[in-house]
């Protein structure tokens, strides 16, 4: 097997599995903080909610830590050329994540767990610190990625290394802001649907009614607000950045092969990269031009306008993007319906809506992962956009065979971890918010 392909498979597998847990921690942290805060005001029901969600959060966090350990080091093990050339830049936000975010999260989580019986104001502030740590951690990681998408604040030294000039340019990269906002809204959608979905499950199984109603209410509101924000402004602005800085990725996302004035938006269709056409498409005329440039007759360049070797893998980018957007639309619709029913005071008795909320739980995970596939697969063939190719980024003395062996090891370990994670979370849910 091609060495870099093995490296890419390993990275894709370990990062996608790892990311399942940060979705949970970034999405649930504000709920933990909110309920802990209410509990420190003497709200006994919120105290039960805080204990329950702290348990779920902690299992998530532990799995995130365990699967996060190799991420920090994989740049060195499997991507030595990339690490050597760009480490002085990429290493910075990663070091900041460790020093400013990860410590905050892990140290204060200890306090939240310790004070879970009877939360004081100090416990509540600690829960806020955990949330800040989780969100800040996400920021530094997105920042690292944003630099790979749109490198800024560096120069290329004589020996070919990329040297940092201005760390603020990297931190405040024009690509990072909306991307981070979009990532965070994605996690909060997941948080909202998890809290709402578990509340719906309790209501449907006629358990813990008062607390379950609270979960459904809080979850539905958060899910609705953030799925709306995921489309506008965060998703829209993130796409605008892609349009500006990575037009080839935009063409791949949309499955646009032909350059066109007044380009249509493909709602569905299957890209055929042999013939460079979209099979069985359903088009909405002129909308892509409008979304990309705010003008119904703007010129949008198609994939055929670019050299073959500059194109990302079109199929994966296209499908992942359409899955994300399709699911996002469903989230807004379901969220809006739930909030409407809440307002009409019929949400808690509407069994179909509760069923929908319960069954939607896994889908924000799919949408979040799909979003990252768009971002990272769509970045190919570059590891640092326009500067360094993925093909030249691997480790010179690590063979594909070694990577396949370690990939198998990671797969086995993560399978066990995944089974245990599901078992523990399901057990907590079954035990419910009684304790």
């Amino acid at each position, binding site marked *: 097997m091609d060495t870099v392909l093995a490296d890419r498979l390993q990275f894709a597998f370990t990062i996608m599995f790892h990311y399942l847990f940060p979705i949970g921690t970034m999405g649930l942290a504000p709920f933990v903080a909110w309920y802990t805060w209410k509990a420190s005001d003497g709200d006994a029901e919120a105290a039960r909610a805080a204990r329950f969600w702290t348990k779920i959060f902690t299992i998530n966090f532990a799995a995130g830590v365990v699967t996060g350990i190799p991420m920090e080091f994989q740049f060195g093990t499997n991507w030595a050329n990339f690490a050597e050339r760009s480490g*002085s830049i990429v290493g*910075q936000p990663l070091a900041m994540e460790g020093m400013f975010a990860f*410590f905050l999260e892990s140290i204060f989580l200890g306090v939240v767990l310790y004070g879970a019986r009877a939360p004081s104001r100090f416990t509540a502030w600690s829960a806020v610190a955990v949330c800040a740590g989780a969100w800040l951690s996400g920021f530094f990681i997105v920042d690292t990625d944003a630099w790979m998408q749109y490198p800024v604040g560096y120069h290329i030294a004589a020996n070919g290394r990329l040297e940092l000039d201005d760390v603020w340019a990297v931190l405040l990269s024009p690509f990072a802001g909306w991307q981070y906002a979009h990532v965070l809204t994605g996690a909060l959608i997941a948080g909202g649907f998890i809290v709402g979905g578990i509340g719906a499950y309790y209501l449907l199984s006629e358990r813990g009614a008062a607390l379950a109603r609270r979960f459904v209410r809080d979850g539905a509101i958060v899910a609705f607000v953030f799925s709306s924000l995921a489309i506008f402004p965060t998703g829209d602005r993130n796409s605008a950045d892609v349009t500006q800085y990575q037009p080839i990725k935009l063409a791949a996302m949309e499955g646009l092969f032909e350059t066109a004035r007044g380009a249509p938006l493909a709602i569905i269709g299957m890209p055929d990269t042999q013939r460079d056409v979209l099979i069985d498409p359903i088009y909405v005329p002129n909308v892509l031009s409008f979304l990309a440039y705010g003008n119904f007759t703007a010129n949008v360049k198609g994939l055929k306008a670019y050299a073959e070797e500059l194109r990302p893998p079109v199929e994966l980018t296209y499908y992942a993007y359409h899955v994300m957007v399709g699911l996002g639309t469903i989230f807004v619709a379901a969220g809006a319906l739930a909030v409407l029913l809440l307002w009409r005071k019929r949400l808690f008795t509407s069994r179909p809506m509760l069923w929908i909320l319960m069954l939607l739980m896994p889908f924000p995970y799919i949408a979040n992962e799909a979003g990252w596939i768009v971002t990272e697969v769509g970045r190919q063939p570059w590891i640092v956009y326009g500067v360094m190719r993925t093909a030249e980024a691997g480790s010179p003395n690590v063979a594909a065979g070694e990577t396949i062996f370690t990939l198998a090891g990671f797969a086995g370990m993560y399978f066990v971890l995944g089974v245990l994670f599901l078992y523990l979370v399901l057990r907590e849910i079954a035990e419910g918010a009684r304790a």
Partner: protein
Amino acid sequence: MSTAGFCVIAFMLTAYVLLDGFDLGVAFVAPLVARDERERGAVMASIGPFWNGNEVWLVAGGAALFALFPRAYASSFSGFYLPFIVLLWLLMFRGMALELRHHFPSRIWQDFWDAAFTLASALLIFIFGIALGNVLHGFPLDANGYFQGTFAYLLNPYALLVGAFALAVLGQHGATFAAMRIEGAPAERARILSRRLWWIEAALFVVVTVTTFGVRGIPSVPVVVVLGFLSTAALAALPAAVRSRSAAAAFAASSAFVAALLASAAAALYPYLLPSIAGTTGGITIFDAAPSPAALSCALAVTILGSIGVGIYGSLVWRRMAGKVRVE
């Protein structure tokens, strides 16, 4: 400038060994300190709130190495690919063991994870020791600074000796921590263990020091000599501190010993990050892996500000959670 970067890396790795060292050590000596499940529960609870924060030093230290000396980061992690991945697996497995054990009130479940935890921790200490031994010993490196030897080469007698020494040192460190943090019978056993371990530790200290002189030559740099004497003094003070029944003093002595020992090793290595075997070329020094001034000042600021922040809220939290763990 590069020297400051070297100090940052040395500081972070020393902080890691000092802090994660005690929870690794506690895990390693747990079977000797705790006799039944209740006591073992207390031993695990004594490190429960800390291990994760302690491990962040390794992650942050890795990132700092990445930022400051990308060449050393790239060539060492990919050069020792398999041993390094095994190390990561052990770290992950250990985290799983500690987090999973208390979720299920079954004797078999807990026995399994406790054994896994002790075994993984002991192996980690041993491997860290072997790694340090190899770094002190030097590697066969090619012109680009990539490791040219075999897996078996890394298990040379000197490295194994340092691995054994690491087990004694961190076992001692863990025992003094357990004596400080736990109440009742396990604490007493930890105290006795720490007195007995001292003899092994001191004997290995002498052997390792003498063989290190053989491998690297007798140190002449003043800093190395001073730090070496400091570590000897801390080791000598340890039994008195243990006997004085002040658990905090014993832990402080053990910490001083670990810190001075690692600092002297770092000072002896300077300016090498990844040395080749004595007399050959190809080692990576801080100068040929030198960071750009902007990268260095940024990483320095992050490390210093971050450490101050962690120091402030870390001690706040430690104070809140002070007090001993009871056997329940």
